[in-house]
């Protein structure tokens, strides 16, 4: 599915002393099957923006189109949009509430009107996709480890079979392996099932490793919208708005300053490795 935001504005607490404009004239298009990362400092409007994507928040002005249809028009089925754009909140494991893992994952499909058997089928498939072992299905969610709980929470969204998956800092608080596991799961869903991904993250390294496009937000506006290489070229501006670049970007920039002919657009270890090795080889030739 494609999502298109046109001149979207959002104002919190309109008409009160706390009035604050969280989104300012946002134009953004997320094409079918894309993997987009959304970065920005705390309070820049990222979370407000992602809550517009499935209609949880309604823009104060502007329009949002899903496959060309305006979601704010009379007769548009917002309920169906909410199941097709799956939103995984921060620390989603806090939202697990059922007695058993399987029941928790079945909740979404059942809520959509599927019967017990159909819902179970969807839940089993989703749990398999996120790699939760069968032995946990009948256990209470709170008995699982942090990483496992988070998978169960993601399975709960996947069981609704979304066409677009929006994840708000899905790796916060996880150990490095847990982070890799969740992100490779997301990447696999993107590749194998063609689900569009919107990943909100504070880890510049993760964003560079997985997304093909990065949207940078600052003060409710879009500051950059480009490939990782092009976005991290602006590392100095990013630092000014509370962000940074992956460590390899700094290495490449500094080596360039020292006279190396390195690729300053390298944002992953693999790219940096290739570029540095090539330059080191060249130095060995008379």
């Amino acid at each position, binding site marked *: 599915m494609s999502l298109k935001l046109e001149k979207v504005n959002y104002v919190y607490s309109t008409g009160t002393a706390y009035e604050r404009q969280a989104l300012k004239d946002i134009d953004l298009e997320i094409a079918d099957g894309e993997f987009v990362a959304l970065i920005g400092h705390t309070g820049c409007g990222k979370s407000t923006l992602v809550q517009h994507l499935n209609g949880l928040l309604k823009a104060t002005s502007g329009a949002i189109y899903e496959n060309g249809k305006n979601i704010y028009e009379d007769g548009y089925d917002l309920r169906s949009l909410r199941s097709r754009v799956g939103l995984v909140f921060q620390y989603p494991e806090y939202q697990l509430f059922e007695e058993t893992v399987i029941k928790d994952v079945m909740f979404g499909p059942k809520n959509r009107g599927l019967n017990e058997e159909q819902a179970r089928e969807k839940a089993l498939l989703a749990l398999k996709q996120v790699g939760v072992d069968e032995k946990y299905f009948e256990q209470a969610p709170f008995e699982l480890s942090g990483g496992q709980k988070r998978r169960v929470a993601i399975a709960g969204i996947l069981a609704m079979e979304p066409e677009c998956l929006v994840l708000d800092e899905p790796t916060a608080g996880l150990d490095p392996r847990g982070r890799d596991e969740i992100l490779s799961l997301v990447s696999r869903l993107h590749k194998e099932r063609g689900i569009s991904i919107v990943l909100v993250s504070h880890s510049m390294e993760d964003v560079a490793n997985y997304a093909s496009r990065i949207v940078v937000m600052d003060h409710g506006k879009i500051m950059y919208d480009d490939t990782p290489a092009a976005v991290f070229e602006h590392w100095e501006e990013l630092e000014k708005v509370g962000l*940074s670049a992956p460590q390899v970007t700094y290495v490449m920039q500094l080596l360039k300053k*020292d006279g190396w002919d390195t690729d300053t657009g390298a944002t992953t270890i693999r790219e940096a490795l290739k570029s540095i090795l090539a330059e080191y080889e060249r*130095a*060995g030739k008379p």
Partner: protein
Amino acid sequence: MIKARNLSYDYIRQDEEGNTESVYRAVNDVSLDVETGDFVAILGHNGSGKSTFAKQINALLLPTEGTLFIDGKNTKDVEKLWEIRQSAGMVFQNPDNQIIGTVVDEDVAFGPENMGVPREEILRRVEKSLKSVGMWEYRSHSPNRLSGGQKQRVAIAGVVAMQPKCIILDEPTAMLDPNGRREVIEAVLELNASKHVTIILITHYMEEVIRADKVFVMDQGKIAMQGTPREIFTQVEKLRELRLDVPQVTLLAHELKEAGIPLPNGILTVEELRWHLNRLRKRRMFQARGEVE
């Protein structure tokens, strides 16, 4: 400052009648020493026992077996409980759960007020501790309008105002953006360097550990590795087995070395890698021209 001897902790689950259903040993036979003024980092995957160990340091949890001395006081000694909590303050992951005041300086004053510190002294302490984390100019602000990094620094100031000898930070940066993470780590380093406060930092971000004096890695409740950051981060494969990682620049250096560039082991910073690569490239250019360096 901290002396642990064969320390263990069991989480015990009981049924309604009080019969033991299951026992889970979260900390298993840990012995370690932390000197006053040290900056110690504890790494370990989720569920490795780090937080349970941390909660024992300020006697939120008491050892099932073994003993733990904090500043010479046994944590099992009930009469010393408040002294122990005063000498070892804790900062947790979520800044929103730790701030109670409606104004920043009020929040920081809460701890010393509770301890019965006289008013004049409280004012002095609030000023000093807010300045030490760079939040003095925000003293009249409402905490809920601050960024995550700022809130976390206020939480640290609140602990500092109780003048502890040791501060334990349990994943203080997990919920923060890059800038917030930087602010908090700088504040912690500053407290350690200028006030000689002993720091125990628990984190999943490997870059935050490189300036520690000593690193402990926990696995299944035990100390699996210990050493300087350089000694620890040289062991890339072992860390991966323990579900951990190394800073990205350390990994890049490791891969460059595997590919044949003769870099030393355990490079920790961007500047360090830059220096070594420049040196090696120059040498190679000299060699290629048949000159001696």
